[in-house]
């Protein structure tokens, strides 16, 4: 039998042209702008809190929410990007901590602050590189590798400082640029955060490397068969993840001028929560940096909203836990819904 390419009806009746019903259009919109859900939920939440609590609806409170969000949000970008390629990093809180120490010690020792900052980032990237190489080459789950790294670098901090806090004593001019207030509105970290998010979103959605990241997380074997350097992608993303955790840590040092061993504790879970609330699949293969930003803001809004409403700060953890659970169910639910509605029977 010969197939004529211009023949409108194919042999097995597969011709989807002209079947543009409402459901398909909604489906396509959800696919194109996956952040729509978290965005509308966030707007709703801010609206409710703003109406409900007078001291919540102030410029100061909004900007402080963003500043808090930026801190974990920068880490969430790296965690999310790595998760999209199918791996976890739970050592980011410890890397964040060790970065504060690297930066302070090198600057205190006389290295000019911008250089100390840069070297800190490089060292943190190397930490991620090592995590990645171990994960990929020894085939140990990244959860275990980074659990070990999490304990190692926090322990290293305590050994190096003997448990005492370390203060920044060098020139502070550069610190203004990192974490100061330029536009008399919010901290520069917010600006760095948004810039990083935009860059990473563009890389993820619009470049060849981004396509490799999505494929690596979506189906590593299929990606490999198509010629994607899967291991290299993962290792690069581990390095990027640690680098961003280091950036957030060094920025924190720039603002508070002190490094103490409980900094960044639990940050890995907040960062992963932010990424997941923003639509990153736990299994990898899908996610968004814009979503991760919104997720971090969401978590930060919950945190301060609860305080403004007079709840004890203890309630923040269980509430965030419930929201994380809901986010996972919704993320999965969306794809299940799609499968039910649109997968054409194979049988």
């Amino acid at each position, binding site marked *: 039998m010969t197939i004529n*390419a211009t023949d409108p009806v194919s042999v097995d009746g597969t011709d989807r042209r002209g079947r543009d019903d409402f459901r398909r259009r909604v489906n396509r919109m959800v696919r194109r702008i996956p952040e729509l859900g978290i965005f509308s939920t966030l707007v709703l939440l801010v609206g409710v809190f703003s109406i409900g609590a007078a001291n919540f609806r102030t410029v100061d409170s909004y900007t402080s929410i963003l500043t808090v969000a930026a801190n974990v949000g920068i880490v969430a970008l790296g965690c999310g990007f790595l998760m999209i390629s199918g791996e976890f990093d739970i050592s980011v809180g410890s890397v964040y901590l060790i970065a504060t120490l690297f930066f302070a010690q090198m600057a205190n020792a006389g290295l000019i602050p911008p250089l100390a900052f840069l070297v800190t980032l490089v060292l943190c990237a190397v930490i991620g590189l090592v995590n990645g190489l171990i994960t990929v080459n020894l085939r140990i789950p990244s959860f275990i590798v980074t659990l070990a790294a999490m304990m190692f670098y926090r322990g290293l901090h305590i050994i190096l400082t003997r448990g005492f806090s370390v203060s920044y004593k060098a020139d502070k001019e550069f610190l203004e640029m990192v974490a100061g207030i330029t536009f008399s509105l919010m901290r520069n970290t917010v600006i760095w955060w948004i810039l990083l998010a935009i860059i990473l979103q563009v890389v993820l959605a619009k*470049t060849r490397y981004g396509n490799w990241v999505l494929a690596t997380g979506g189906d590593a074997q299929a990606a490999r068969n198509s010629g994607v350097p899967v291991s290299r992608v993962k290792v690069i993303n581990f390095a990027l993840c640690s680098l961003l955790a280091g950036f957030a840590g060094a920025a924190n040092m720039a603002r508070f001028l002190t490094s103490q061993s409980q900094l960044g504790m639990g940050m890995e879970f907040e960062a992963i929560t932010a990424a997941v609330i923003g639509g990153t699949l736990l299994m990898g293969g899908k996610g968004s940096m814009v979503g991760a930003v919104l997720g971090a803001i969401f978590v930060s809004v919950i945190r301060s909203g609860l305080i403004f409403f007079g709840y004890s700060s203890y309630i923040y953890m269980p509430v965030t836990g419930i929201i994380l659970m809901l986010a996972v169910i919704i993320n999965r639910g969306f794809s299940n819904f799609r499968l039910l509605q649109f997968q054409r029977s194979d049988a």
Partner: protein
Amino acid sequence: MTDTGTPIVRMTDIHKSFGHVQALRGVDLDLHAGRVLGLIGDNGAGKTTLVKIMAGVFPPSRGTVHYKGEQVRWKNPSQSRASGLEIVYQDLGLVPIMNIARNFFLGKEPRSRWGFLDFDHMATESLRAIAEMGIFLDDAEELVENLSGGERKALAISRSLYFGVQVLMLDEPTAALSVKETHAVLDLMETLKERGIATVFITHNIHHAYAVSDHFVALNAGVKVLDADKADVTPEMLTEAVIGEPLAQVTSHSLAASVGNGNPEN
């Protein structure tokens, strides 16, 4: 159909052992451009192993592979793919949660100015290439997980064609398909012939093989038990070759070991 011209692929005296399992014992095989070779055999007969050697997934224990008249020793599948040989596996090597266009160009993404992905090109080219297989899709952003089995197969095969495949190995492409989709896939093979592709059609379904193949090779416990043009065989003869006792050169002991280790999934 008679044998003309030099074969595009010639495999000679191929042996392959995995530990104690002798998966292939002295198999010869020729492929010709524009022809479909039906590679048949029961589960564990060595079909997949043979094409994996052809595509450089692993080297043969003994024997040679010639491609376009020259002996080749592929280091890996990427190398053979770059030369125009490709296996389309049963799971197709597609990423289910990525869309059609992204899957189509995975690993070979076209870039426009500034180095960004050229989405317009990716969308139009992928849909056009799939339409040439007789499958008409209208949304290149549709996720592959929402496609039917036949549509996925058309995507995988059209992708290989688009990137200049010359020897295409389809490993059990009709397994787990509906009757309608099976027909669509068998029709795809006519398209491959018209395009001058040398196709290896692996199946253990004699009727599927008989419908589209020009030539048959049957393996039985790693031994080639039949090698004939379509004109010279009947489906009954093919069935006989596949399920019958393999030839005498095999001892009953080694045969039992080999069959016993047969992988039912393949």
